[in-house]
């Protein structure tokens, strides 16, 4: 995994979170983000996100982190 590629994915998912912050509470925003990622991201991008959140996901927006965890749980 390249750092710049992962940086881009973190930037992308955080941007999704910020743009949907009015969708409801953190759980609702996370649901929205997870749905978007599920629908539009490639298999490998999702896998990279899963690995990143497993390692702590430090740079993720809280709602994006919750979304990543939901996606990981679904995939498991």
């Amino acid at each position, binding site marked *: 995994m390249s750092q*710049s590629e992962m940086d881009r994915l973190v930037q992308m998912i955080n941007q999704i979170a910020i743009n949907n912050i*009015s969708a409801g509470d953190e759980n609702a925003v996370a649901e929205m983000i997870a749905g978007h990622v599920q629908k539009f991201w*490639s298999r490998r*991008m999702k896998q990279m996100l899963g690995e990143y959140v497993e390692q702590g996901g430090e740079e993720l927006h809280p709602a994006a982190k919750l979304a990543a965890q939901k996606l990981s749980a679904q995939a498991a």
Partner: protein
Amino acid sequence: MLQHFDPNKDYGTPASLSEKLVTLEIDGVEISVPEGTSVMRAAALADINIPKLCATDNLESFGSCRICAVQIEGRRGTPASCTTPAEAGMKVTTQNEKLAKLRRNIMELYISDHPLDCLTCPANGDCELQDMAGAVGLREVRYGFDGENHLDAPKDTSNPYFTFDASKCIVCSRCVRACSEVQGTFALTIDGRGFDSKVAAGQDEDFLDSECVSCGACVQACPTATLMENSVIEMGQPEHSVVTTCAYCGVGCSFKADMKGDQVVRMTPYKGGEANHGHSCVKGRFAFGYATHKDRIRAPMIRDSIDQPWKEVSWEEAIGFAARRLKEIQAEHGRESIGGITSSRCTNEETYLVQKLIRAGFGNNNTDTCARVCHSPTGYGLKQTLGESAGTQTFDSVMQSDCVLVIGANPTDAHPVFGSLMRRRLREGASLIVADPRHIDLLDTPHLNDSMHLPLRPGTNVALVNALAHVVVTEGLEDKEFIAKRCEGDAYSKWRDFISDERHSPEHMEAVTGVAAADIRQAARTYATAGNAAIYYGLGVTEHSQGSTMVMGIANLALATGNIGREGVGVNPLRGQNNVQGSCDMGSFPHELPGYQHVADPVARGRFEAVWGVEIDHEPGLRIPNMFDAAIAGQFRAMYVQGEDIAQSDPNTQHVEQALRALDCLIVQDIFLNETAKFAHVLLPGSTFLEKNGTFTNAERRINRVRKVMPPIAGKEDWEVTVELSNALGYPMDYSHPSEIMDEIASLTPSFKNVSYEKLEQEGSLQWPCNDEHPVGSPIMHVENFPIGDGKAHFAITEFVATTERSSRRYPLLLTTGRILSQYNVGAQTRRTDNQAWHDEDILEVHPYDAEERGIKDGDWLGISSRAGHTVLRALVSERMQPGVVYTTFHHPHSGANVITTDNSDWATNCPEYKVTAVQVEKVTQPSEWQKNFHDNHERQQSFLKEAAAAAAEAQ
């Protein structure tokens, strides 16, 4: 084609749209016509052809030549049939001795001041004056030819495409009226009076120096050889014509390719074309010479490394080489290590085949298209709100609009034929609101009635549209009945609460947008109360970090005011390239099969799997920017690019170049060695729209036929190349004509179910959805319900989030980019035509305030730096933008406009934020490092091409 009129016949005056019929008698023939029809047109409809010179049916009647005089029972004199409305019970005589004498006398006067060089005249065989002289039986000119005349009037050859020969002018004013009524530029006038009357361009300037936009309407209107295409002067009259569709811009104009054998003599706008009704712009009308330009790639080429010369090979060897490399890479790096890009310049059928090859032949969904970098937010935003990824209207719908709101679009430059139609409606009195950081030409429309400009700061679209919607909701301007009946209730309630909040008020947003609150309130009131209000938008909406949010905000505004589902209203994305709509429809995006059917939908996927005979991956593939990142990371190794130039058109050029260099195999199929092809290992010659059969779909969802008028220069149409590549990869494709591909598309795409070439021949064109419910297509969408949820539109929450690309001490200015009339997209086509006469370099427009602060004058070389890169352009001091905003175009590759644009992108679709880049500008004396490297690489790659041609010639 099914036409309600013969598009090849000139009926003399325009059709009346009245539903009331009047019955009259012309030369003893009874005929019923709509009230308001002229006697001339009524006669023509009965196949009675009254002689005419100043009349033509795309211009209002003028009544100046008098040659169309008739006699009407019970009336005195000989009225002009073009200006006399047909009335019930009228009895008209068009031919008798008195009329014949009158017409001969008039014609005699015309001919007494006309060169008698018919046999050597370029209009010989296509001259209405000659025809009318024949029709009236002119046999002598009693006045002689020695009197005062205009026979020595000079020619104006300043325009590269047509010549103005004043000696042949009969001052019928058709050119002047075409420029005013059809084009709306008002560049031409009749200067002087009486015998001294003459056609003048601008302030009696050369055509090239005047405001003339070279649309060709005057040339089309001229009944003599006064205004004549240079190509006809050089080649003579065409001997046959083929109706086809223009390959420039999303208007999708129909043209007659006027041919001599397999040579195009001229492109004449086709009156039967539903998108353009016989009008054209400088690109479609004249800029077709690129098709036979010396730079065309005429043979397939391969090389192992991009630092090696090309080697010309047979099609078989090139296809075999490409297939072998793709297989080897997949064997070593996995199924998902390769992908491809479809083209918005190619046909629907070709685009469909490329994504099919990727999904079925490559076995993954790594397919994307250039709509990624232009209108992908339209697809997302309209699907979320209205349920369909497409504009809602026909172009003609604008003629029913009372208010036109143009956001982030420049129709007179980027969609000129529609821009002219819009101007016609504005002259009739519709209100105009333009929301754009730049003062666009539409605001300078002659005879404009009510107009306002909202010059917002780049990057604040959502703040503006939210403020407009806030006014609508808080001032009680909503269409409550429409909302209750047509929109989903819960989503509306949530949106209403959201948008009513004071933080969205114009007063609160004034500091963000830079637009006065009072202006926003006035604009909202005008839009909401106009009656029929339509929104037209372009890349100034989509190419932002909130592009998708803005599209949804636009849909919200239209829904809240009930401006959806009928003529004159709607949400109208103006698509950039000719087949952006089609390439999206055809399943180019990595998450969607044709017809916007998600790859995860097992039912839709199952249908494709059954026909294609393979299993399709249920996970989306990579988008273009993700392909680049993955390539740099070493995970993505090969790419098949048909008809796109990602190295020039995509943002952050240095990042794109790094990604392209990282590929083990890049296969480019194009008509020229474009910027992307300089990084390629396989170069497959492409075919222009003149060399193939297929269909394009324009911005109004209109599917139009593209017809082959000449053989492909390298022997194959683009779809044939994809078929051969697929077969070489082991995934069999077997089509003998694009019509078979369309049949397959129709069988798998619900919105195309009833589309076929046979039906296109019958109807001329079809607007999707075209299915059992709408057997001949759907001009206006969402008339009864929305294809979403339970049929009700969905209001979306559109929170404004400022872009991270902001001006700073280091980069204090905001750069925004756009288009110009004479050039098209990356310029690969138009730069290889005489359109260069108007725009041979990209320049940077700087506001006088910013220019003065930096000591900048017109023509200075300016270094432009952003966090992504540095380039150098020449300066033009201009007040079109607000202070703090600079502007350029990206039509010339050596400009490096995209060296400075960043990889910021739309949150939902990754559409790049071309419209906002923080920059600094300063005077410099030399090109940038990137430009020097570009120049060196360009020279090297051109020499590789020449070496290949020389080696091939030697081998023969």
